[in-house]
């Protein structure tokens, strides 16, 4: 089967974790991509993009000083943007629906929950090639059309399932059940530390 000529793409990986950059690089190289650049945060990515034409960004969310969300917003809306249409695949440990929506509202093209897999990254690259989304400009948004759902996030919507932290109980003492659980987990940790 003849695949796409991914060797012609220039991809920029933006992540503050060197191991994660290396893992994404390995996947891209195996898919045939040869022009791979790396940046350690959003500001570094913009510096790289001012020097080289980039076709696709794979960016982490949590980075300092400029995170992936701010980088995407800058690319989409700043007059100094090197390419306001460049596709951005956002990697994140966040799987909560609200976070995915936040990424979408920043102008991210595809969202990818960690752990990273070769299949999920490849699928998103193919999706960008085959199903490009039109861009939309409104009074408060510029970016890919948000009406088309991004690929679903992986993993359960745990926050929704659990109801999240019960803020009405913030600052209150632990319940009897929680105290018993705390004691058991402390004992378990202690025995692990001894072994």
């Amino acid at each position, binding site marked *: *089967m*003849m*695949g*796409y*000529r991914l060797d*012609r*793409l220039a991809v920029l990986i933006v992540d503050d*974790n060197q*191991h*994660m950059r290396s*893992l994404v690089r*390995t996947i891209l*190289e*195996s898919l045939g991509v040869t022009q791979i650049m790396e940046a350690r945060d959003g500001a570094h990515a913009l510096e790289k993009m001012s020097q080289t034409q980039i*076709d696709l960004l794979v960016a*982490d969310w*949590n980075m*300092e000083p400029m995170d992936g969300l701010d980088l995407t917003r800058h690319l*989409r*809306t*700043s007059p100094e943007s090197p390419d306001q*249409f460049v*596709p951005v695949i956002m990697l*994140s*440990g966040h799987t909560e629906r609200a976070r995915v929506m936040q990424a979408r509202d920043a102008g991210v093209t595809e969202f990818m929950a*960690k*752990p*990273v*897999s*070769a*299949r999920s990254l*490849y699928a998103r690259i193919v999706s*960008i*090639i*085959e199903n*490009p989304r*039109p*861009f*939309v*400009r*409104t*009074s*408060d948004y*510029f970016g890919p059309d948000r009406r088309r759902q991004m690929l679903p996030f992986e993993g359960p919507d745990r*926050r929704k399932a659990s109801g*999240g*932290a019960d803020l009405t109980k913030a*600052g*209150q003492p*632990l319940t009897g059940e*929680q105290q018993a*659980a*705390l004691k*058991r*987990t402390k004992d*378990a*940790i202690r025995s*692990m*530390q001894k*072994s």
Partner: protein
Amino acid sequence: MSGDKPKGAVEVIHPPNKIKARVGPAGKGMDPNLLARAEAAMAKAQEQVDFPAQALPELNRAAEAVSLLLSDRENQTKHLNTLFNIVHDLRGGGGNFGYPLITRIGSMLCRYLEGRTTVGMAEVEVLRSLVDAMRAIVTNKLKGDGGTVGQELCAGLERLVG
């Protein structure tokens, strides 16, 4: 760039598909051979990463942030942010480098912190247990599901965070 549009007006733009032009028209979908090659290369790369060596210093920093929640109360929000960011990164990496328990417990901690800007003694106890559990997991190199020990530990922590 988006702010100069009158409220309610929508402009739809179809930018040229530069990526498609670059990669050529020959492909369609994912090439299964290429995918298999990428999965194999990734598995090999994952084995070479010493996740505990990377995670332990970060978890020590997380433990320090937990201690500061009580000793430096006026900066609790800052310390909670530090804690969240450290654990959030680790939960992302845990699943990729053979430590899904770090992902599971890290997710519990991140969920527990969502929406909290201050904490009391009880919450600090909970946070300390979560960080200590993660430290014990990487120190003991408890890979995969962690067996009975790992599962019981996680079940206890889940009861703790509610």
